[in-house]
């Protein structure tokens, strides 16, 4: 074999993204919802890396750094919300907070 076709890398990213998306849609536990979000963000980062290495440009990795930053921010806020949810409702069920129908 002589190198990896870019499509293979991108398809791997797409598969991970789809799995994360499915998880986001069918999990009710907020911990799992947040983990699915992390998976999706990570797959987006993977796509950046794949494209960056395919064109041999460092921008892909720079962009990945931003994705990680975003993931860190998202995780901290999401986990804070999760703690609030648990403190107020004694559950991690996201459907429990549908009272406002927002």
């Amino acid at each position, binding site marked *: *074999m002589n*190198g*990896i*076709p870019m*499509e*293979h*890398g991108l*398809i*791997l990213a*797409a598969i*991970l*993204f*789809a*799995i*994360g*998306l*499915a*998880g986001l849609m*069918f*999990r009710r*536990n907020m*911990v*799992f919802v*947040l*983990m699915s979000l*992390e*998976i999706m963000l*990570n797959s987006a*980062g*993977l796509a950046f*890396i*794949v494209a*960056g*290495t*395919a*064109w*041999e440009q*460092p*921008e892909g*990795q*720079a962009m*990945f*750094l*931003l994705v*990680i*930053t*975003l*993931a*860190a*921010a*998202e995780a*901290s*806020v999401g*986990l*804070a*919300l*999760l*703690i609030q949810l*648990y403190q107020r409702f004694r559950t*991690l069920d996201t459907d429990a907070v549908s009272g406002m129908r927002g």
Partner: protein
Amino acid sequence: MELAFYLSGLVAVLATLGVVTGTNAVHALLYLIVSLIAVAIVFFALGAPFAGALEIIVYAGAIMVLFVFVVMILNLGQGAAEQERIWLKAQTWVGPSILAAVLLGVLVITLWRGNTGLVIEGETLTAKAVGATLFGPWIIVVELAAMLLLAALVTASHVGRLPSATSGEHSGGDQ
């Protein structure tokens, strides 16, 4: 190199499936860490060692530790896994999974048809090149990322307060 890519790719997919179908939060987190490390190996294989190192340090290290801490704080107990099993009935996951599969199919077909012919040789792009990009033309983006982190810090410390500290806010008001 190719072998490492396909093998760790397979591990990543399987581990990720383990995450979304798991019932125990700690187990799922461990799966997620495995998945992240597998993706990090993919990065190494693709010739992006800097990103791979970051993936392990920041993602699998810092963020996942945060998750583990939170799960430990909540101390969900025995009933949680049972509850998950009840929630994970076939009619709940089949629909979303089909939808995600359709989306995946569309993406794959699109990728297949738009054949670029680009092949990743595995040439190493060093941290030096990334740093030169980040602190050269991308400096404003780095600043924005810093601001984003600050905002997240403030938000998390505000939202994450215990209810007793916020109870004073809901009193008052004329009539």
